[in-house]
C-alpha cells in the first residue's frame, strides 16, 4: 500500500493508472465480470455511461432552458424610483390604475393584460399592524435569515466542487480525490438537515412577524413558492441518493451514473438558489408590478428584475469560495487532531485543496460584486449613492479590512505550504515582495475618503480630506489596490504550484520570459489605467477604465494557468511531503471561514440597508418600529452573534460527521461476565 505522504500526486498517478478503475476489469474472477454479478436481465449490456450522460444533459436542459428563457426574456421596466410621498401613492385604489389614468410615467410595462387582471396594490401596514413579540422583530429575522443563508450557501457550494473532485478522481484514477470528495459530501449532507430547519424557522419567523409583507410576497410570487418547495423535495432526494450510493455506484458505468446524480444535485441546487435570489432582488428592485405593487407582469418578469442575474453570479461564485473556506476549516481541524502521519498527510492535502478552491473562486468575486453595484447604480442612482457614497460608505472600508484579512490569510497559507517541497527554496525570496505589495495595497484600500472631523480637526488637517492620503480614498486608487492584490495573490498561487516541479520543455526560458513580462505589463497597465483615467479624465473614462484593469488581472490569471499547463508538461516532480507543514499555518485556514462568514453578514447588512425604509423598494413601505438603518456598531454586534452561532453549528456538523466513523469496541469478554 503506497504511503501517500511520500509520493506526490504525479507518481501515484503513474502507478495507479496501470490498474485503472475505469478500464476493463482485470481483477475479476475468471470469466464473469463480477461488477455486474446478478444482472441476469442484461442490464449490463445497456450503455449506462452514455445513458447517464444523456439523462444528465436532459436534466440540465429541462432546468436550464427555463432559466435561460428567463434571462433572455425582455425584462419589465423597473418601477420608478419614487419619493417620500409613497403613502399617497399607495392610496391609489385598483380602479384608478387603469391604462387610461396611469400616467405615461411607467413606460413599457407588459400592460397588455393590465386592464384585464384584477390589480391589487401592495398593502400598507402601519406601525400598529406589525406583531410584537417583545424583541426586535428585525433582529430575530436577521439572525435566522443569515444562518439560513450561511448553511444554504454551504450546501449548495460543496456539491459543486465535490462533483469536480470526484470527476478528477475518475480521470486520474487517483483514489485520494475519490476519498476527499466523499468526505466533503458527508459534511454537506449532514449540514443539509440544518439548512432545511433554518429555512422552516425563517419562514415561520417571517410569517409571524411580517404577515402583511409575506402576504404580499406570496401574492406576487404565487405558485413559484410551490415550485421552490417541490425543488426542495427533489434536492433532498438527489442529495441523499448521491451521498448514500457512493460506494454502491463505485466503478465503471455505475460511477458515471453517480456523477450524473452529482450533476443533478448541482442543477437543482442552482435552481433553488436563483429562485430565492429573486425574492431578495424583488425587494430591492421590483419588476413585473406597477408603481403601487399590483402584479402586472408574468412570473418571468417578476423573477428577472434588473439585479437578479448580477446577484445570481455574485452568490454563485461567493458560495464556492465560502464552501471551500468552511471545508478548509474542517481539514485544518482534523489535521491538528491527527494521530498518524498518514492522517496528517491526508488532511494537509485536503486543506490545501480547500484553500485552493476558496482563493481561486475568490479572485473573480470583486468583479462580480462590482457588476452588482453597477446594476444597482443603473437601476437607481439614489440607491447606489446610499450604498457607496452615503450612509453606508464606511461599510465598504470594513469590507476592505475583511478582504484584506482573507487575502493575507490565503497567501500566508500558501507561503507556509512552500515548506512542503524542497524545490520551493527558489521562490521563497519573492514572498517578501508579494507581502509588501499586499500590505501596501490593503492600506490604500482601507483609506477612507470622507472623514467625520470636528472643526478643530478640519483646521489641523487643512480641509475635509488629507492632502496626500485623501487621494487614496476614492475608487481609482482602490481599484488599483484590489487588482494588484488579486494579481499578486495569483502569483503566490503560481509559485506554490511551481514549487515542486522542474520544467523540462525546450522553450522554458521563453515561456518564463513571457510570463514575467505579462505580470510586469499587467501591473503597469492596472496602475496606468487607475492613475491616468482615474484622476485625469472625465467620469465616463474613469469608470470604464476599471474594466481595463479587470481585463488585465484576468489576463494574468488565464495566461498563467495556460502557460504553466504547457510549460510543465512532463515536468520532473520534486519530492514533496504532505503533512510537513506548521500547525500555525492551519490557523490561516480558520481565519478564512471566520472572515468570510463575517463578510457575508456585512454584505447582507448592506443589501438590506440600501432598501432604507422600504420592504419592497418604492412599493411597500416599512412602517415597523425597526424601519431605520442600524448603525454599523450595532450591525457589527449582530454579525458577530450570527458568526459565533454559525461557528458553533458548523463545529457540531463537523463533529457529527466524524462521529459516524467511530465504532465503539465491544466490551472485553475473557471468561468474565459482560460488564454493564
Amino acid at each position, binding site marked *: 500500500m503506497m504511503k501517500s505522504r511520500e509520493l506526490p500526486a504525479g507518481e501515484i498517478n503513474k502507478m495507479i493508472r496501470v490498474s485503472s478503475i475505469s478500464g476493463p476489469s482485470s481483477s475479476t474472477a475468471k470469466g464473469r465480470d463480477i461488477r455486474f454479478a446478478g444482472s441476469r436481465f442484461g442490464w449490463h449490456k445497456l450503455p449506462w455511461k452514455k445513458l447517464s450522460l444523456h439523462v444528465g444533459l436532459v436534466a440540465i436542459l429541462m432546468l436550464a432552458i427555463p432559466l435561460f428563457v428567463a434571462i433572455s426574456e425582455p425584462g419589465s421596466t423597473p418601477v420608478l424610483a419614487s419619493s417620500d410621498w409613497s403613502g399617497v401613492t399607495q392610496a391609489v385604489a385598483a380602479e384608478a390604475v387603469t391604462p387610461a389614468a396611469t400616467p405615461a410615467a411607467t413606460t413599457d410595462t407588459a400592460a397588455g393584460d393590465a386592464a384585464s387582471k384584477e390589480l391589487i396594490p401592495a398593502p400598507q401596514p402601519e406601525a400598529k399592524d406589525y406583531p410584537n413579540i417583545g424583541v426586535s422583530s428585525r433582529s430575530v429575522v436577521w439572525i435566522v435569515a443569515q444562518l439560513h443563508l450561511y448553511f444554504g450557501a454551504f450546501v449548495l457550494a460543496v456539491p459543486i466542487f465535490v462533483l469536480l473532485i470526484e470527476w478528477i478522481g475518475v480521470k486520474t484514477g487517483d483514489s485520494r480525490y475519490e476519498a476527499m470528495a466523499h468526505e466533503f459530501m458527508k459534511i454537506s449532507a449532514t449540514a443539509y438537515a440544518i439548512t432545511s430547519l433554518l429555512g422552516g424557522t425563517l419562514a415561520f419567523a417571517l410569517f409571524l412577524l411580517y404577515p402583511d409583507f409575506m402576504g404580499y410576497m406570496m401574492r406576487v410570487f404565487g405558485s413559484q413558492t410551490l415550485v421552490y418547495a417541490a425543488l426542495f423535495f427533489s434536492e433532498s432526494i438527489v442529495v441523499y441518493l448521491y451521498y448514500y450510493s457512493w460506494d454502491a455506484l463505485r466503478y465503471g458505468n455505475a460511477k458515471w451514473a453517480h456523477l450524473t446524480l452529482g450533476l443533478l444535485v448541482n442543477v437543482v441546487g442552482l435552481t433553488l438558489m436563483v429562485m430565492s435570489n429573486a425574492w431578495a432582488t424583488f425587494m430591492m428592485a421590483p419588476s413585473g408590478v406597477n408603481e403601487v405593487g399590483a402584479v402586472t407582469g408574468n412570473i418571468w418578469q417578476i423573477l428577472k428584475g434588473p439585479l437578479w442575474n448580477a446577484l445570481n453570479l455574485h452568490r454563485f461564485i461567493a458560495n464556492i469560495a465560502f464552501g471551500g473556506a468552511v471545508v478548509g476549516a474542517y481539514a485544518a481541524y482534523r489535521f491538528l487532531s491527527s494521530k498518524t502521519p498518514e492522517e496528517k498527510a491526508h488532511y494537509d492535502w485536503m486543506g490545501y485543496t480547500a484553500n485552493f478552491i476558496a482563493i481561486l473562486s475568490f479572485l473573480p468575486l470583486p468583479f462580480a460584486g462590482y457588476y452588482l453595484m453597477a446594476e444597482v447604480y443603473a437601476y437607481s442612482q439614489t440607491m447606489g449613492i446610499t450604498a457607496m457614497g452615503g450612509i453606508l460608505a464606511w461599510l465598504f472600508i470594513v469590507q476592505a479590512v475583511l478582504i484584506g484579512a482573507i487575502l493575507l490569510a490565503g497567501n500566508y497559507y500558501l507561503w507556509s505550504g512552500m515548506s512542503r517541497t524542497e524545490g520551493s527554496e527558489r521562490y521563497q525570496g519573492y514572498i517578501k515582495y508579494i507581502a509588501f505589495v499586499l500590505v501596501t495595497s490593503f492600506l490604500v484600500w482601507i483609506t477612507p475618503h470622507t472623514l467625520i472631523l470636528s472643526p478643530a480637526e478640519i483646521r489641523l488637517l487643512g480641509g475635509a480630506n488629507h492632502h496626500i492620503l485623501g487621494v487614496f480614498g476614492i475608487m481609482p486608487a482602490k481599484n488599483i489596490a484590489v487588482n494588484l492584490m488579486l494579481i499578486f495573490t495569483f502569483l503566490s498561487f503560481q509559485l506554490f504550484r511551481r514549487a515542486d516541479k522542474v520544467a523540462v520543455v525546450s*522553450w522554458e*526560458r*521563453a515561456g518564463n*520570459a*513571457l510570463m*514575467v*513580462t*505579462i505580470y*510586469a*505589463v*499587467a501591473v503597469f*497597465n492596472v496602475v496606468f*489605467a487607475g492613475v*491616468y*483615467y482615474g484622476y485625469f*479624465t*472625465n467620469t*465616463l*473614462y474613469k469608470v*470604464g*477604465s476599471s*474594466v*481595463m484593469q479587470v*481585463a*488585465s488581472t484576468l*489576463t494574468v490569471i488565464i495566461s498563467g494557468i495556460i502557460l504553466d499547463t504547457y510549460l510543465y508538461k512532463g515536468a520532473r516532480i520534486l519530492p514533496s511531503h504532505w503533512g510537513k507543514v506548521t500547525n500555525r499555518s492551519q490557523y490561516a485556514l480558520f481565519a478564512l471561514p471566520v472572515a468570510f462568514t463575517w463578510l457575508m453578514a456585512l454584505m447582507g447588512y448592506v443589501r438590506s440597508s440600501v432598501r432604507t425604509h422600504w420592504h419592497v423598494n418604492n412599493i411597500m413601505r416599512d412602517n415597523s418600529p425597526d424601519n431605520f438603518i442600524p448603525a454599523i456598531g450595532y450591525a457589527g454586534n449582530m454579525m458577530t452573534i450570527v458568526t459565533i452561532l454559525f461557528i458553533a453549528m458548523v463545529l457540531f456538523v463537523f463533529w457529527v460527521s466524524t462521529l459516524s466513523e467511530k465504532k465503539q469496541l465491544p466490551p472485553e469478554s475473557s471468561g468474565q461476565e459482560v460488564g454493564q
Partner: protein
Amino acid sequence: MNLNNPVVVWLGAIAVTVLFFYGLDHIIMSMQGLPLNMNLTPAQ
C-alpha cells in the same frame, strides 16, 4: 529568431506583451463606447 539568445527572447516577450495589452486597452474601452486615441488618451 534565435531563441537561445536571452536578449532576443526578452525583447520578443516584451514586444508581444505590450502589443497585446495595448490592443486589449483599445478593445475594452471601445466596447464600452469610450474610444481612445493612439496615445491612449480619450477620444471624446
